[in-house]
């Protein structure tokens, strides 16, 4: 009896202990049956900031009638891909709507973690107005006929330059090197800037490879052949790599380039350290915002990305990718999440998002007086550039591995002078082919 009493007493103590612990860790009380919260995960940057007034608008205008409350989260850019991957694979159901890069779509979609939007689009085409999107942007997340996201932002690197210092921005990549020399103080004591330009070399990110493509493609190079064999170790690849290598060797770019990605590259221009940069179109909103760029907001212009002189014209290509909105297949409110997604991607909301700093690839944006007022000419100019010269990477699940690890490592090695360009590209090509062969992609 004593032992039973002791056991009973101890179980009671344990129950109290668990209850005390549980009281601190249990979530909020269950919501009313008619009130559903949908979590939208953006990321820290101009896109997240641009989405805030949109979310506020939903909660003010749409929430009372739909019973859906929208909550936005903005995690850090660092480790963002890993975060989304972990969230989707955990099948926790949160967040309901994610904001993935198109290059992440093939592999997370293969795991069945994203909702195919096609059935919803077919059921209510008026809600989505797919014909208003740029087809290249929609195609970026269409895998084997399944539409896994709708593009919220379209990204392409363009040229930003100090129009108070440069009358004619560089039109070719050779012009880039010449002009970078001219605006680097260690090479030209009279240069008004410390460096000519920057080089996007951040370790573990795809940008070094993506910006390199804008030099490689005009030289006539292709990333892969029809059988998905890498074909970068060629004369075009060497010439493209030599541009970055020359900039580093001449001291035309701040070092180390492996620490430079979006914020650092943009800051180098907006604080007057460099004369021109190759940077994503999303930066334009920040550049012309005097509260963020008080000194140089009026002194920076944009221009087409440089290319190669060919037959009297400039042959150029833009690497294009999208960041879209996708629905988590484990969401507990898939239908509601799709409904919110459709509203967020609607033409009317897309205009407001673009005015706030986004870049939704809808044709109706370019006819919008509201957009023209804040960015006169910019959106229509972007549309022209994409239409003429935009190019996507192959839609392979291996692209993050290829760009973030393999190409990043070897391009940085070549730029730093530690590898000869052909050696670096040959090694990269061999590793890429080994990877694609191992995964059964190559035909």
């Amino acid at each position: 009896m004593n032992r039973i009493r002791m056991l009973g007493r101890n179980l009671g103590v344990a129950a109290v202990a668990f209850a005390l612990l549980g009281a601190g860790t249990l979530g909020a009380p269950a919501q009313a049956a008619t009130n559903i919260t949908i979590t939208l995960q953006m990321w820290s940057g101009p896109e997240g900031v641009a989405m805030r007034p949109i979310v506020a608008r939903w909660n003010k205008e749409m929430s009372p009638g739909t019973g859906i409350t929208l909550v936005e989260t903005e995690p850090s850019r660092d480790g963002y891909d890993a975060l989304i991957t972990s969230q989707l694979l955990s099948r926790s159901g949160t967040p309901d709507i994610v904001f993935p890069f198109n290059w992440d779509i093939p592999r997370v979609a293969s795991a069945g973690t994203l909702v195919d939007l096609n059935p919803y689009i077919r059921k209510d085409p008026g809600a989505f107005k797919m014909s208003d999107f740029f087809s290249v942007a929609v195609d970026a997340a269409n895998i084997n006929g399944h539409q896994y996201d709708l593009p919220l932002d379209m990204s392409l690197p363009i040229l930003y330059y100090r129009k108070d210092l440069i009358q004619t921005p560089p039109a070719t990549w050779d012009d880039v090197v010449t002009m970078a020399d001219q605006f680097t103080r260690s090479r030209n004591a009279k240069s008004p800037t410390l460096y000519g330009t920057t080089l996007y070399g951040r370790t573990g990110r795809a940008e070094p490879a993506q910006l390199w493509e804008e030099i490689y493609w005009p030289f006539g190079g292709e990333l892969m052949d029809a059988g998905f064999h890498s074909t970068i170790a060629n004369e075009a690849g060497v010439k493209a790599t030599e541009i970055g290598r020359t900039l580093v060797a001449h001291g035309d770019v701040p070092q180390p380039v492996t620490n430079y990605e979006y914020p650092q590259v943009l800051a180098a221009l907006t604080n007057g350290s460099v004369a021109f940069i190759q940077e994503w179109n999303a930066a334009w909103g920040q550049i012309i915002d005097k509260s963020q760029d008080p000194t140089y907001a009026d002194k920076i212009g944009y221009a087409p990305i440089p290319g190669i002189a060919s037959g009297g014209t400039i042959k150029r290509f833009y690497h294009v990718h999208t960041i879209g909105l996708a629905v988590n297949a484990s969401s507990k409110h898939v239908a509601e999440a799709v409904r919110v997604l459709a509203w967020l991607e609607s033409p009317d909301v897309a205009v407001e998002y673009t005015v706030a700093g986004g870049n939704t690839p809808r044709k109706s944006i370019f006819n919008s007086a509201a957009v023209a007022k804040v960015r006169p000419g910019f959106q229509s100019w972007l549309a022209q550039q994409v239409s003429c010269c935009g190019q996507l990477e192959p839609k392979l699940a291996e692209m993050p591995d290829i760009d973030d690890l393999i190409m990043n490592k070897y391009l940085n090695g070549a730029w730093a002078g530690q590898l000869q360009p052909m050696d670096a590209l040959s090694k990269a090509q061999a590793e890429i082919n080994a990877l694609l062969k191992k995964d059964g992609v190559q035909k």
Partner: protein
Amino acid sequence: MGAGKLPLAAASPGTGLPALAAPGRMSRLWARFAQPRYVLLWPITFILLLITVYPFLQALRESFYGVTIQNYFSAPFVGLQNYAMALQDQAFWASLGTSLIYVVGSVSVEFLLGLGLALLVSRPLWGKRILITLLIAPMLVAPVLIGYSFLLQLDPLYGPVPYWIAQYLRFTFGGQGPLGPAYALPTVMAVDIWQWTPFMFVLLYAGLQTQPAEVVEAAHVDGAGFLRLLVQITLPLLRPVIAVAVLFRTVDAFRVFDSIHVLTDGGPETATTTISVFIDHTAFLAGNFGEAAAVSVLLIILVTIIARVLVRALFGQQIAVTR
């Protein structure tokens, strides 16, 4: 014997009544851990097991499957293939080499600096308490914040560190900056040393305070100088504390990830790709969770072996005496 009844022993002397047998080992354990003071620990023990043992078992399981992001929910069993791939991967061995350099270099310097600081602060000093508080401040900050702080401080364009080094030491890092290819590994080690020397200092300082004063006085009376006192009295008496401090820091230095991820993410190229960074890249950039899990298990085995060696080397005398 009836169910639930204890076996009967011989009658208790003088009573004629049968005596209960001595409680078995399980019963003694239950009686001990069923006391309220232990029962209150059950919830936190359960949670700790959940957040440490369960993930380890999950990683161990994944290491035997060909888990990638694409086939995460339908991965095939591959046996030891992930381990074989890792052991044949040059990048794995390179990252292990980088980790060894990082651990040996950082922990050695942290120990020497921590010991030096502890010896200095052990003397009578004005404002000692404030000094100690300032000295231990770095280790109170999350490593990821230390990483972001130094990312700004070390920037060649805006950072004060390269500026002051160029001004006063006339050293410009070859134009690459402190995080350039040739200097990245020593720089991230320096950041680690800056943050974790206080840990060594705290333990060694506490150890010095417990040293018997009469032993030190006797050594002085015998004419022992500072160096002889240090080598023959102080350090031997401090050995258990040194063992604990070095062991903890060694294990921690193998696991370092946050600050390196923020500062360089393993770059330039693979200059600062330690084993933890390699695991992160294998899992989330290459999308190969199976191989990453296998490398994690190999890391646990390696750190366990190193910890055992350290314990034997540093605690050897104590263990021999105890036995």
